[in-house]
């Protein structure tokens, strides 16, 4: 009970929207069904970025172009998947006091693996992302999923939840990166998409562009959500 109260506070800064914790029904449907609903829900309805405002730092920092955004999304998905599996396996042994520390340590081990992997196989991406790969450790999205899903649910559900959240995060990254790269550079994944007379909006590549684009994107999504709610 205390946990859920804490979560409610930490997940909903002031959007007034849904708190991040997906209250999956604990009784009734089979495990497989619960896992599927968790997956689909996290993908868009409860998108970690747009609906719960989690993991904002990488969202803003690595979305100047699509390639680093995709790399970051996949790296975060990998870390989230591994940490969800481990946390779910050890969930019986977690004590309330040490659990956040255990989450953080688990996550940092996998982040180290991901960082070394990127350095070895895609060094150019690793250079672009810089310290934002290690900063996955403090990405609140991952701790939030460990806390609100993996530490309570069996492995299979945790895995599907990780995939849903991770891909949802990647989608959000790519959406923002696509807007910024097209307007700021006229390209998408380094391919020219806008005609050559297009004057690139340099502002889009700068931090200010990131904040403003994400702000309007959030506004648009809240607007659409409100419309849907009104219809229902």
């Amino acid at each position, binding site marked *: 009970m205390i946990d859920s109260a*804490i979560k409610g*506070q*930490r997940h909903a*800064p*002031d*959007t*007034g929207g849904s708190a991040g914790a997906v209250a999956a029904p604990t009784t009734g449907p089979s495990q497989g069904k619960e896992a599927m609903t968790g997956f689909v829900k996290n993908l868009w309805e409860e998108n970690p970025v747009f609906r719960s*405002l*989690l993991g*904002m*730092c*990488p969202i*803003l*920092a690595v979305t100047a172009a699509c390639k680093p955004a995709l790399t970051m999304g996949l790296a975060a998905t990998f870390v989230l998947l591994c940490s969800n599996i481990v946390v779910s396996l050890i969930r019986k042994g977690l004590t309330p006091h040490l659990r*956040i*520390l255990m989450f*953080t*340590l688990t996550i*940092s*081990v996998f*982040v*180290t693996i991901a*960082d*070394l992997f990127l350095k070895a196989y895609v060094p150019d991406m690793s250079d672009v992302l*810089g*310290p934002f790969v*290690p*900063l996955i*450790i*403090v*990405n*609140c999205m991952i*701790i939030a999923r460990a806390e609100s899903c993996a530490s309570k649910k069996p492995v299979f559900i945790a895995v599907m939840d990780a995939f849903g959240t991770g891909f949802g995060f990647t989608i959000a990254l790519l959406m923002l990166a696509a807007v910024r790269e097209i307007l700021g550079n006229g390209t998408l994944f380094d391919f020219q998409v806008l005609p050559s007379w297009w004057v690139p909006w340099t*502002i889009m590549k*700068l*931090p*200010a*562009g*990131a*904040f*403003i684009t*994400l*702000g*309007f994107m*959030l*506004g*648009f999504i*809240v*607007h659409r959500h*409100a419309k849907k709610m009104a219809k229902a």
Partner: protein
Amino acid sequence: MGLVVVFLSIALVNNLVFMKFLGICPYLGVSKKIDMAFGMGLAVTFVLTISATLTWLINNLLLIPLGLDFTKYIAFILVVASMVQLVEMYVKKFYKTLYNSFGIFLPLITTNCAILGTCLFIDLWGYNFIEAVIAGFGGGLGFTMAISMMAGIRERLELADVPKAMEGAGITLVTAGILTLAFMGFSGMVK
């Protein structure tokens, strides 16, 4: 002179919030009231100064000589987490009202990327010990300034007629974007 440049660089030119996108979560979450934002900023400054000092020492005196620097991230996050715990106990004991107003956000400094991020940037830029301490302190002050400014603006925004969909996070992000534009005036002053 070099130290002044380091300080100005991290407080203004490479401001953690505006230029490095660190600490966005508290920046959006705790910036509703100016006194709370200021308190949060001070807590971050304190933790950040100590963490930057400690992580520099651990990294340069322990991990690198022993060839253990692949465990850097794990060591850094442990330092940050234990520092936050310490500050939390201290504030709880001596500043009860401040503690109550922080609520959940004090323990959340652990997952404030400003702290870990600055420690990593200090390592990346290859600062020496004094520079690392100054950078930690300056980064904290820069964060305090950014979050207090935002809180001041948001207190005014309460009265403004903001479109329904943009209320809350949307308008805050756009405001942050405009503030960032102002801070871009500093870019180029220091490398």
